[in-house]
């Protein structure tokens, strides 16, 4: 029953017992924060405060404080929005799609990946809200009866589809995450010594006791939520791409956008998971649980999705030429050779060229190299959105209105602020939540633990 082919590498290293898993995962919650945590938290918090200041300045003065002009009327705000939503996608992919495929390696990383999803979708949601200008009118995006007739929201508009997609995605990801967290909060509650801590985890764990019927329901609910979250995550970036694809701007009006955006989202999201987990495993000494096997698997996903993105870029170029539409052709020619050529080639280098190194086992199992590539990929994916958005609109049909975009300190400040906010949330999470789904991990200890596998090899299968 607990047998697994010796071909598969162990996922839990060392001579671990169930109680070792409990101790190792409860440790960061129960011990004092390491110095590195405080340093990282302070930097992130300062960035966050700077962002708050820039957001307040924007709301108080108006979006004229951004670098937008009459031609480039969408720039960093929507770039950052798409970038953050895309990053979020990997969490759901890991927890839902890999659950449906019964991939055991997901169990060490799904908790943190989902946390990343939720925190990055929060950052993404900030941008449309502040871009509204009058944020106190934000409730107008909801179909609420009002004194104007009622004048309803427009359900034909992809921007409204986005409101529904993002809010469904954020809330469903949150409950999915929380359902899985409850048994792990109960674990911390049951071993807490400090009464304040015990009380907090008692509140958070909802009284969970691990009854047989409850576990049966838990597994069913996880499976159904995974089944719901899988099409949901694909729909979210599809709908984000509709914001562009349903318009008639050359460079945006293409049917390839939905699959291309989804592949790019998974690509950038996995890169961010790598960045975060390489730090988490080091600071919290989780190397036995998040080991080279997991890193390699994620690098393979990065390589495959990066190549899909590459194919999409080339398809776009080909179709622009093949369409025979001169405006479409110019849009792509301008991207590659126009004044924003550097952004285009930065995107190509980071997203298409750099993941190809992962074909080499030596490189994809090298931690430093993986860390560098994960950062490079996220820079590249930011440029991808910038290229799609700004280079498509900065030269429109009327050459007299052609212009360039340069960000003001407020554009930059808000972007930096969201990075700070993201890390503030993630660092707080890493200190107070069980960063690995320990209950799930215990179910694979006997099949994928190093000591148990060794025992099987030496003493036969059963």
């Amino acid at each position, binding site marked *: 029953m607990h047998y697994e082919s010796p071909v598969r590498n162990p996922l839990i290293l060392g001579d671990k017992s169930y109680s070792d898993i409990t101790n190792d995962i409860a440790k960061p919650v129960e011990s004092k924060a390491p110095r590195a945590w405080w340093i990282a938290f302070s930097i992130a918090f300062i960035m966050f405060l700077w962002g708050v200041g820039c957001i307040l300045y924007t709301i108080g003065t108006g979006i004229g404080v951004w670098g937008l002009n009459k031609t480039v009327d969408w720039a960093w705000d929507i770039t950052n929005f798409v970038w953050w939503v895309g990053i979020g996608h990997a969490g759901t992919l890991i927890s839902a799609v890999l659950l449906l495929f019964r991939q055991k390696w997901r169990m060490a990383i799904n908790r943190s990946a989902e946390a990343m999803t939720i925190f990055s979708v929060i950052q993404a949601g900030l941008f449309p809200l502040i871009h509204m200008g009058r944020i106190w009118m934000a409730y107008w995006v909801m179909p609420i009866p009002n004194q104007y007739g009622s004048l309803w929201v427009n359900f034909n508009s992809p921007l409204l589809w986005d409101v529904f*997609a993002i809010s469904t995605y954020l809330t469903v990801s949150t409950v999915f995450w929380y359902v899985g967290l409850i048994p792990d909060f109960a674990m911390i509650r049951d071993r807490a010594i400090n009464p304040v801590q015990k009380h907090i985890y008692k509140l958070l764990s909802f*009284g969970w006791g691990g*009854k047989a019927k409850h576990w049966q329901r838990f597994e069913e609910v996880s499976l159904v939520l995974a089944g719901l979250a899988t099409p949901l995550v694909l729909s979210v970036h599809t709908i984000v791409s509709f914001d562009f694809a349903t318009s008639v701007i050359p460079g945006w009006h293409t049917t390839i956008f939905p699959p291309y955006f989804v592949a790019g989202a998974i690509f950038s999201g996995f890169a961010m998971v790598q960045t975060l987990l390489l730090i988490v495993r080091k600071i919290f000494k989780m190397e036995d649980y998040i080991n080279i096997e997991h890193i390699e698997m994620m690098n393979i996903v990065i390589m495959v999705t990066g190549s899909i993105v590459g194919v999409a870029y080339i398809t776009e170029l080909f179709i622009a030429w093949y369409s025979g539409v001169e405006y479409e052709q110019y849009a792509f020619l301008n991207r590659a050779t126009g004044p924003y050529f550097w952004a285009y080639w930065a995107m190509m280098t980071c997203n298409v060229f750099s993941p190809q190194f992962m074909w080499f086992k030596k490189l994809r199992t090298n931690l430093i190299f993986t860390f560098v590539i994960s950062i490079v990929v996220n820079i590249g994916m930011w440029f991808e959105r910038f290229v799609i958005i700004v280079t498509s609109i900065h030269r429109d049909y009327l050459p007299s209105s052609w212009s360039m975009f340069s960000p003001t300190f407020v554009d930059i400040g808000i972007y930096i602020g969201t990075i700070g906010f993201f890390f503030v949330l993630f660092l707080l999470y890493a200190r107070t939540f069980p960063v690995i789904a320990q209950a799930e991990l215990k179910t694979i200890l006997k099949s994928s633990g190093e000591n148990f596998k060794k025992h099987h090899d030496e003493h036969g299968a059963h």
Partner: protein
Amino acid sequence: MGHTKHNPTVRALFNDDDVVLGAVKDLRSNGYEVSEVYSPFPIHGLDEAMGLKRTRLSTAAFFYGLTGLFFASWLTYYTMNLDWPQNIGGKPNSMWFLNMPSFVPVMFELTVFFAAHLMCWSYFAVNGLYPGAKAQNPDPRTTDDHFLMEVELEGDEDALNKKLKELGALEISKIEA
């Protein structure tokens, strides 16, 4: 514990999932009623071994999703086609059905929204989970690496205790009903 029992219960503590699963099978084949097992993680096959029925939460989720789909259909029909129809990009809006392709994303999202959230609320409700609820497990070790079984005592107590010891129980205690 929900329902009241007439028989006293014997609690046996184990430290291995395979042992506890084997013990449940053995006890049930010998006519004992295993009323509960508290475990730190889901044990594959335990629900069948204990004779638990399949949960109906997934069926409920299907109907919750259907509710969301109907709600979205009604909402888009009412706001876009009945209450204040407008010409938006020349899209046909004389009938909901003709306008429906524009509403597919929202219909899908609301289906998922209703199915996921209502299923989770149902899950919390049937399990008696809410913020601040008292821990349901009688022994805190069962969220770490121990497994606690509750067997209804019928007949000879010593025979049951002996049986549980043979099956690998570490500690045995009795609670009166």
